[in-house]
């Protein structure tokens, strides 16, 4: 057994994290930065950080991921990384020629106290930034929050550096996209188009991290929110933050800066969350819900009904990011399943409250944990104490799934051992059917392989 060291008896841990359900801020910042058109993310720190984040994103998306690094040396850690960053900016514009450089910090540059505001304005003053180009930045200390925080900080920086209010408001709704797959962003844009709502999505990784194979390598693929669109977000009449953990901060900043009112909704995973998102968009864009979407919803309900006996009372363990877990738990409840263990390494009150709210009556025995030492070791110990019928989470769940022989649905970041997460959406009604089929397949494949011979059934 791969995790033979895990015991059912919970050990008392105060300092140790085992098999984390999170990673550090900069990778989130790097991912978000790729959702801006023509943007090169820049990691202000040691070379390894940049290399690790690029590898992590590449393993997940199976796409080229470009980012540059300040390549800190011993000298820069003593004297500060200012010189490195200024020369990096110069090199990047002359060599890689992006529209925007999005700088994020690392634990190292934060701790030695590099002041990005000062460094970047000096680079601007010294003429290191060519006309029409831009250097933006955000602080992403690895020892605060998680990759989710890093994503949120990067999205906020877009508002800080681009959003501008002109006297004329436009009948446009901003869709501030939380941490989703490119496929999910594409699906949300499709839904908005179906509703004939005028929207601007940011960030937008579709056509960036799901590009076609053409025989050519484009360092800056055609997707991503353009600078012009990003500036125009200040004139929109409303913002919907999709995923509170990753977008609320940006929405608040946009309201403060450009008086654009907002609401945050959960990422539309599952029926109820999709209902809420569509109602929100319908209300704020002042457009009706078209019959086509009502029909999609009906097909989802139909599929749930056809299969409901397979879901009832199934115990599920989940881990991942709060913005994904909250609507996912809600969807599992819609399916009549029982989310019993939920873990996220990302700290935050909203998650704890949402879990209590969703589960206190339906699953009173639920165990959930967020923040420090809310890791997969913890979850595995719970599973050892009382088993589950299904595990949902990123690829790191495969060790537990194998050791405990549990059907496993891969969802979240990173999924390094299966393709398709950037292809098939999980959001919206159609996405919910994709997810439902995935859940069913995992159950039924497992059953077909493990049930006694005489119980093998041809007809479901």
């Amino acid at each position, binding site marked *: 057994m791969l995790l033979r*060291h895990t015991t059912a008896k919970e050990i008392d841990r105060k300092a140790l994290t085992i098999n984390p359900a999170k990673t550090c801020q900069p990778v989130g910042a790097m991912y978000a930065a790729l959702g801006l058109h023509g943007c090169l993310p820049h990691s202000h720190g040691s*070379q390894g950080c940049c*290399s690790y984040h690029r590898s992590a994103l590449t393993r997940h998306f199976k796409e080229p991921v470009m980012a540059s690094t300040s390549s800190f040396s011993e000298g820069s850690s003593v004297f500060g990384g200012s010189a490195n960053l200024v*020369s990096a900016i110069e090199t990047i514009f002359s*060599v890689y020629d992006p529209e925007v450089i999005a700088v994020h910090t690392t634990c190292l540059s934060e701790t030695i106290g590099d002041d990005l505001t000062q460094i970047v304005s000096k680079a601007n003053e010294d003429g290191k930034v060519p006309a029409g180009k831009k250097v933006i930045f955000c602080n992403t200390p690895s020892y605060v929050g998680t990759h989710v925080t890093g994503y949120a900080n990067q999205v906020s920086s877009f508002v800080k550096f681009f959003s501008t209010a002109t006297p004329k408001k436009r009948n446009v709704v901003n869709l501030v996209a939380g941490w989703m797959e490119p496929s999910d962003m594409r699906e949300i844009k499709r839904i908005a188009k179906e509703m004939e709502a005028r929207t601007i999505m940011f960030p937008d990784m579709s056509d960036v991290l799901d590009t076609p194979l053409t*025989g050519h390598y484009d360092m800056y693929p055609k997707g991503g929110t353009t600078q012009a669109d990003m500036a125009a977000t200040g004139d929109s009449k409303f913002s919907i933050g999709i995923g509170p953990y990753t977008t609320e901060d940006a929405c608040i900043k946009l309201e403060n800066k450009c008086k654009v009112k907002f609401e945050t909704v959960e990422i539309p995973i599952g029926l109820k969350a999709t209902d809420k998102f569509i109602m929100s968009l319908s209300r704020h864009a002042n457009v009706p819900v078209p019959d086509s979407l009502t029909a999609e919803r009906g097909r989802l309900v139909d599929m749930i009904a056809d299969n409901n006996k397979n879901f009832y009372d199934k115990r599920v363990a989940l881990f991942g990011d709060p913005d994904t877990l909250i609507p996912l738990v809600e969807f599992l409840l819609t399916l009549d399943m029982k989310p019993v263990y939920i873990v996220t390494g990302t700290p935050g009150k909203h998650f704890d409250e949402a879990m209590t709210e969703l589960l206190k009556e339906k699953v009173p025995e639920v165990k959930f944990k967020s923040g420090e030492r809310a890791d997969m070791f913890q979850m595995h110990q719970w599973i050892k104490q009382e088993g589950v019928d299904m595990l949902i989470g990123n690829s790191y769940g495969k060790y537990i799934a194998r050791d405990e022989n549990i059907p496993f649905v891969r969802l979240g970041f990173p999924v390094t051992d299966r393709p398709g997460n950037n292809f098939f959406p999980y959001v919206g009604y159609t996405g919910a059917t994709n997810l439902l089929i995935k859940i069913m397949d995992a159950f039924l494949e497992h059953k077909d392989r493990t049930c006694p011979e005489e119980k093998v059934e041809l007809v479901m």
Partner: protein
Amino acid sequence: MTDNGLYGFKAEMRSMQIQSITKRQDKITPKQKSMAEYLEGRENQIVTKGVDSHELVGGKPSVAGSVSQRACVFCGSRVVLYPIADALHLVHGPIGCASYTWDIRGALSSGPELHRSSFSTDLREKNIVFGGQDKLYQALHELIDKHHPKAAFVYSTCIVGVIGDDVQSVCKRVQKEKDIPVIAVMAEGFQGSKKDGYKIACDALFSLVGTDESMEVSPLSINILGDFNLAGELWMLEEYYKKMGIQILAPITGDGRVQKVQNAHRAALNVVQCSGSMIHLAKLMKEKYGIPFIKVSYFGIEDMSDALYEVAKFFKDDSVMDKARELVKDQLTTLIPALEPYKRALQGKKAAIYVGGAFKAISLVKALRLIGMKTVIAGTQTGNTEDYRLLKTICDDGCIMVDDSNPVELSEFVKQTGADLFIGGVKERPIAYKLGIGFCDHNHERKLALAGYDGMLNFAKEVYETVTSPVWQFVNKNKE
């Protein structure tokens, strides 16, 4: 020659580089121009054999702002030590460094799997302000109580070096209290490149060597340095050496065990592969214990056979040499005909190589030649000037040699040379595919054993499979 000296030649070198690019391409398109412009400052790190007369210079730090494919000191130490499966590997730092190195290499173990879990002190803001020493001390205790490992490696990351935790004294203290070796691996990321991390890992290993004498040792014993048992490669080598009557005392570090490392000083010979990572340990062991070492490679028929013969030669034992000859003969009798169909299909195809170390690149050039392919790009992340001299003698004219490259450069070179295959690591794979050419992972994510004789056949199959894949016919490479 100092860096300043090189700088003096910069203008001249640059014009040479531009000339060599002009020679490769009859007319300079606007894209080519920007490429030439881009090469400023990197003239010494790119050489076209038969066109350029200057030497390829390795070991230079990457320019700030580059999209380098290189990693950091911590990464270097972590990848070298991680395969020791019955030791604890605790990463002292914020969570990222532990997350990103969690089971990313397929370094197989025949026993314990402790190395495949991720342990971290997960330093938070308050630890950065008040220090992380106490947390480290406590985490070590919690871990050792739970897992009773044979030794513990504590990796210090960038930030630990800056906030000034005294990792070494914590390790000493826990070592005393728990009576197992607790080794501080001082691998702050910013202190150099991945290569410097290898050296630090070697020092850590060296501190274990010579601390136990309890294993049985044959007079014909060797240590294998620098094989990490990716896809079970070490086990194949073990078979070969066993057939020659040779004992592998300590595999360092693939399928590694603490006790074996502790006994490693009693072997007769160190056999070093991937010399970039392990040569330092071999030198230390030679100095202190008088153990000689030889450098080998296990990729390709030629190098693999040389590795066996060199070891046999060392022991000056006719029966060992006879067995080696017999083994090689046996293997080649089946392998050579098995390679034939692949060679026919791949004849004249062109390959681009961008790998970690130069030794691997050299072996790959030879292995590719064996299956009829020509290497048109040969680059590495960490080669030094001396390695490149050797690489150059092996490459054909027209081969572009490059040090510390980046995606823009590499994809440009692929276009110029019309390569059919790219051999590299995780970050190069999707770029190769986007360019519409085959790809072979010769890095730590490979799933097939590529070492040894079986590995050569696997390699030929993998190259064949990807180069001749029907998918490429759907890519229109000529479209601009």
